[in-house]
């Protein structure tokens, strides 16, 4: 069945598939599957889904301090007086901050870069919230900045750029360790990861 035949079956389905396939990670085939799932699902569920979508778009905004996705500005993390605002964790996206929050091990604040430097996509330092981060560092003088960018070449270039821009020598800058995942086997770990794991080894006594 080609696309012109589908269009003749229902323009509504074609439109829905078109919208869904524009979402990140959704190809035309998955979009079709989702569309038919939506059609078959009870109306109440779909109404509730569409209301959630509209609500998310209307009510969510970005915190003007840390740029995390939030309902209130400042966000619940920036306005929480029990958190240590002298420690700043720099991440690519809000979803990374949520992943760290799920660990329940970090009680500092965040700074969301809104992406990583990606020259091929035309994203340079000016397209990210790096200047706001530098302003924040100058105004608040944190004790520690934890760089938690992805361990990819683009994530590493982003972290190198940020580190070079921080002129204040008194601020401690750390990076998340790169190494062997829990439950992984040493003999299956590739050379690059193993080298990094050796370089970032920690004293235990």
């Amino acid at each position, binding site marked *: 069945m080609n696309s012109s035949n589908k269009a003749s079956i229902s323009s509504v389905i074609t439109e829905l598939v078109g919208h869904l396939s524009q979402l*990140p*990670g*959704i*190809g035309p085939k*998955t979009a079709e599957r989702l569309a038919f799932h939506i059609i078959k699902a009870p109306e109440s569920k779909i109404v509730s889904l569409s209301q959630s979508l509209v609500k998310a778009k209307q009510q969510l905004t970005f915190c003007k301090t840390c740029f995390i996705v939030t309902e209130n500005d400042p966000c619940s993390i920036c306005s929480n007086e029990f958190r240590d605002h002298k420690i700043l964790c720099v991440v690519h996206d809000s979803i990374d901050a949520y992943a760290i929050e799920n660990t329940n091990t970090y009680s500092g604040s965040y700074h969301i870069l809104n992406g990583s*430097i990606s*020259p*091929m*996509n*035309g*994203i*340079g*330092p*000016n397209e990210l919230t790096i200047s706001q981060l530098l302003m924040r560092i100058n105004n608040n003088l944190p004790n520690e900045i934890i760089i938690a960018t992805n361990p*990819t*070449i*683009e994530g*590493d*270039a982003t*972290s*190198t*750029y940020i*580190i*070079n821009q921080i002129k204040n020598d008194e601020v401690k800058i750390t990076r998340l360790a790169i190494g062997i*995942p829990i439950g*992984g*086997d040493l003999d*299956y770990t*590739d*050379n*690059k*990861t193993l080298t990094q794991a050796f370089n970032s080894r920690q004293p235990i006594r």
Partner: protein
Amino acid sequence: MQKTKYLNFEGITISSNDYGEFDKIYNILSESEGVISCIIKRIKKNNNPNYDSIDIFQKMEFKASVRENFWTIYEAKNKYSWLDRPINLAKLSSSNIIAELCIKFNSINENNTYIYHLVNICLSLISKNNILFSLIYFQIKILISEGIFPEINNCLSCNTKLTPDDYYLIFEIGGLSCSKCLTDNTKIKLLESEIRLIKYMSKIELSYNESDQKTIGNLDINLYKKISEYIKYHTTQEIKSEKIFFTSLN
């Protein structure tokens, strides 16, 4: 329906995009096929023992299945990585420029083996901080490879020898013009020293082992920009990484 083929090949990862929840699509430059788009499944989960850590600008040994031009990588072993940490913006963005040019010229390129070795040499030059030399060398060699390298010996219209003042590269005719023959065509002025450099670089052919020794003093970013304008005229496409590359030089 075509049968599934299984292939082993060496390639350089030149760009990647997220695909779905756990997968990524990599553009891989290979010696036999040029740039191919391959899906690597569950690579974001990072716990598949069949894959080494994969990132861009790595030379790797791949095992892939191909069906109806749809490439799926099921094994990848790292051979060499050009961009060592910490990675600066100039190295990343210049490598990205080379990647973009490979992708842009891929559809018409038949010299895959030559381009593959050229990219090896140029990434090696970049890793040793010979960034501008690498980019200009790549520009010139890809123009030669595509058959659009300009004629830079005489005025293409009247065939007279050019004086130091009137070197104009005319985009439409793909060559130089003297001031008498100059028309309203798209053009750019080239300095005598720039012409000499272009001629020199068009004649030299680096091997991979030479890439750590080769460098030229007085290379100017303006020469890169001028050749880039010429390439843009022929490809009608912007090179997105250039903007960030110029920022990185400041």
